[in-house]
Each structure stands twice: as C-alpha cells, then as structure tokens.
C-alpha cells in the first residue's frame, strides 16, 4: 500500500502548477488536447479505484464513460439552453444506477469471470447504441450546445471558451482526486484495500465484502460517467466507439502503465499514452510497434508503473525523511 509521502505531495503540487500555467503558453490545439487528456484521466483514476484498490479488474469500464456521454447528448442534446446542474445531476444519477445494476450482477463472480462479465455488459451497451438509429447508430450523435453553468442568472464558467473549459476540467480532476483520496483514507477505504489483499479473511473479520465491492463499483462507474459527461460537453460529438472494449482495454493499460493503486499514477499513464499517440506518428508510421515496445518495457522492468518509479526515486533521495515508513 502506498502512503503519500511529502516528496510525492510536492511532486503532485508541481504537476498541478504546470497544468495551471499550461494554457498561458500552450497553443489552442494543445490546450484542447490536454483538456481531453484530463477528462480521460478522470476516467482512468476511477478505474484505479476498482483495479488498484478493490481488486476488481473491470474490462467494461468504458461502458459507463459512454453512458454518461450518451445520456447528456440524448437527454439534453436538442435543447438550446442546457442547465449544467440539472444535466449533471441527472446524468450522474442514471450512470450510477446503471453501475448499480451491472455491478450487482458482476460482483457475484470474481477473477476471470468478473472480467468476462463486465466485458459482456459493455459490449451489450455498445451494440445497443451501435444499432439504434434513434441515437445515431454507428454515426454517433451530435450536441448543439454546451451546458451553461449559471448561478442565480450569473454565468460562472463559459464552456464555449476553450480556456475556461480547460480550467473547469482541471478543477474536476483535482476534485475527483481529492474525493477518492478522502474515501480511501476513511474506514471504507481501509476495508476496500484489505479486500483486494485477502477477501476471505476480511469476510471472516465481519465485513460483508460484496456490499463494499458494489459500492466501490458504483462510485467508480459514476465518476466514469462524469468523465463521459465532460467528454460529450467538450467534443459535442459521441460515437459508440466510446463504449467499446478497445476503450476499456486502453484504460486498463493506462492504469497499469502509470501505476495502479496510487490514484496519481493513472493520470500520468493517461498523459504518457495519449501524448505518445500524438507524437510518435510524426516519426514513423510504425509507431504502434514502438508504443507496444514501451508498454512491454514498463511492465517488465517497472512492475509498479511510472508511479512506482517515482516512489523509488523519492525514497532514495529523501530516505532520511521516510525512514521507518514503507512505501
């Protein structure tokens, strides 16, 4: 289990400062790209709650990302004025409900069966949207307007402005990170982490572990829905591909590459994967080969991902501070 040591906190604050300053120097294209990455990070961080902390390897997590995005587009896409508070509340509660139903069935299984079941559910949702002309079918669905964030008729954030949208998503990313850190420090988180380590024993100590796994699944699904909501608001265009197993697989890869069970690792993993996808094609058309090589290297030589590397560096340089504590 990773404790967030002081050097790590300083590192995270530095990263946050960089993200805060970026739109002032970055071009419009890269501001948009980093916004997209941060939205994906919210999605992968929620997957880390399942994979890294609860021990549930969900291979269908993209379903909730897609459901969140589709809900916003279907329910509010035609409106001229979309009330942000209403649309967010409705989208998140319905995504949470979907996660509750899927989770209620899936957590009865474990291991490979859990993976297969979550995958099957995600594919079901994928084909539902893929084959429903009402919701755009395989062409996807457009949104006319973005949600308007107003409080007592005053506009707080203008989502049509790319800079505003960037800071809006950054605030959500920080909020989600702090929220998940909070529940992981609370009694609930202690039980989750123990379930991942040894579920049978945790049951024998008096915890109804399926309930804890289900609540974790619903929280993760709802946050994935939030990421979908933001993505739909950002691009105004949703296709069934958002729900596909390819997306779920990419998310797992980002979590593992970044370092699961750390919360900030998946964010780093998302940045690395998306930026590589952006840069590598400039050098060679066989960039997927290089990408695969990098992933194999990380999995073989950095078993705890990039976050694990950051931990070992910080422990080496700041070991006096951390003596007695184990990472």
């Amino acid at each position: 289990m990773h404790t967030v040591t002081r050097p790590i906190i300083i590192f995270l604050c530095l990263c946050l400062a960089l993200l805060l300053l970026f739109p002032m120097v970055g071009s419009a294209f890269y501001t948009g790209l980093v916004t997209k990455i941060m939205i994906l990070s919210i999605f992968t961080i929620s997957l880390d709650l399942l994979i890294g902390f609860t021990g549930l390897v969900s291979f269908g997590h993209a379903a909730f990302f897609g459901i969140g995005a589709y809900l916003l587009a279907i329910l509010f896409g035609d409106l001229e004025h979309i009330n942000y508070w209403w649309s967010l509340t409705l989208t998140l509660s319905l995504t949470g409900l979907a996660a509750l139903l899927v989770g209620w069935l899936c957590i009865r299984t474990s291991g490979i069966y859990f993976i297969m079941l979550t995958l099957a559910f995600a594919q079901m949702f994928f084909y539902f949207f893929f084959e429903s002309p009402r919701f755009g079918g395989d062409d996807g669905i457009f949104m006319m307007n973005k949600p308007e964030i107003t409080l007592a008729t005053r506009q707080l954030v203008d989502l049509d402005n790319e800079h505003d949208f960037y800071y809006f998503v950054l605030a959500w990313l920080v909020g989600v990170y702090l929220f998940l850190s909070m529940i992981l420090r609370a009694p609930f988180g202690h039980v989750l982490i123990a379930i991942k380590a040894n579920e049978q024993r945790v049951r024998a100590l008096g915890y109804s572990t399926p309930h804890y796994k289900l609540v974790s699944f619903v929280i993760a699904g709802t946050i994935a829905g939030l990421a979908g909501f933001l993505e739909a608001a950002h691009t105004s265009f949703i296709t069934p591909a958002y729900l596909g197993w390819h997306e779920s697989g990419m998310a797992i890869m980002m979590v593992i590459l970044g370092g699961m069970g750390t919360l900030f690792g998946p964010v780093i993993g998302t940045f690395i994967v998306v930026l590589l996808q952006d840069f590598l094609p400039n050098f060679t058309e066989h960039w997927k080969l290089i990408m695969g090589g990098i992933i194999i290297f990380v999995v073989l030589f950095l078993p705890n991902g990039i976050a694990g590397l950051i931990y070992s560096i910080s422990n080496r340089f700041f070991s006096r501070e951390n003596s007695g504590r184990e990472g």
Partner: protein
Amino acid sequence: MSEIILRTEHLCKNFGGLKATDDVSLEFERGKVHAILGPNGAGKTTLINLLSGELLPSSGRILFKGYDITDARPEKVSRIGIGRSFQKTNILPGFSCLQNCWIGAQSCLITSMRFFRPAKHLRMVHRRADHALQLCGLSNKRNQIAGTMSYGEQRQLEIAMMLATEPELLLLDEPLAGMGTEESQQVTALLKELAKEQTLILIEHDMDAVFSLADRITVMVDGAELETGSVEQIRNSQAVQDAYLGHDEEDAA
C-alpha cells in the same frame, strides 16, 4: 454446569458421497477451553468451517447463545461475536501488523461504509488494534510489514487479527501448526492467557499443548464424535486409545 455458549445439533456435512461431518452434537461451555482432537481427515477443520459460516451444513443446527446461526455467513458469525483463526496463515502480507489488526478492530463500527473522516482519527479502533497486538506480544512489531516477519510471528498475528474483533468465542484452527518448539511454547502461553477470560474452541495436533490447555476434549474419527470428556477421561479411554492415541504412541515409539 455453566452456560452453554454454543451448541450443535445433529450437524452433518457431505461432500458428494463423503461424510465430512457426521451427526455431530456437541455443547461448548462458556469460559472453558474445549479441544477437538482427531487424526488427519477426521473432519476437524470442516467442523470449524461449519461453525464459522465458511461452509453451510447439509443438515442439523448450530445455536449460539440460543440463537440459530446455522445459515449465517462468515461476516455475520464474526459480527455476533465468534472469531476464528485459520490453520493456513491467512493474513494481509503486504500490510503492517497494525494495519492487519486495524481491519479487525474497525469491525466495532456499526458499519465501515463511512466515507468522510480519516479512519486514523478513530481512537476506539486504535485502542482495540493496539490491545490485540499487545496481547499477542507484537507491540514492538506494529509497523513491520507482516509478510517480512517470521512464521511464528505471522501465526501470532493471525490470532491478533481475530482478537481485534473482540470476540466472545474463539475458534482456533491449529494455532500451533508448523511451529518450532520455542514458538510453540510462546503461543501456548498466549492461549493460556486468553483462556483465563475467554471461551476457546481449539483444534490442535500437539498432544502436550492440548492436555495442558483443555478443560474438555472431544475426539473425532471419520467425521463423527467418538468421545467427549475431561482430559483424564480421554487419556484413559480405551476407545480413544484404539482409534487415535494408540497409533500415535506406537508411531512415536
């Protein structure tokens, strides 16, 4: 005769054609150490698994303080005050000793579905976890990662985790399994200490430990109860000698 804390009535468990537990009716008194002896495959661990809810019986009943707990699952059994330790060390190896006990101690909360305040602020949980570690002599190891400790210490932690839930009745499945002489003496001393205040149901192979600890002994053979009685009674029983002790002494000789 003192209060019966746990009672089984005609308890049976079949695995396919195998009768792992065969019509076992036992009574366990509060405040006593009740040991269950038997050769390998006699169904001792199956019995503990039935009592702790890991397995559901094929027929028969289990009553704890008069309440029917036959169908209770492990989490329920633990919640109503029956703790168990495992024969095969069953700890959280990547966690410190304190964190291992913490999970047990936290079960004092009505629910752990609490999302806001950090768990470390819960004084009550701290006290229980520390108390369990202290009882098992692991106070000075509280921050050591459990997986890096010696086998004997891990066995002690196994018991500490159970104690952290502050159970009324302790089910101990071979607490001395695989221990060296010195470690085994340490744990025996710990069990003696626990026996002063607690009710213990003890499965153990180590005869010396059983005879020195137990108030009552039940001998099981092939899933069925062979005889139950005081230590002296079991020592002198012809049936038990034939079924179990006799062989054992011949083997030893």
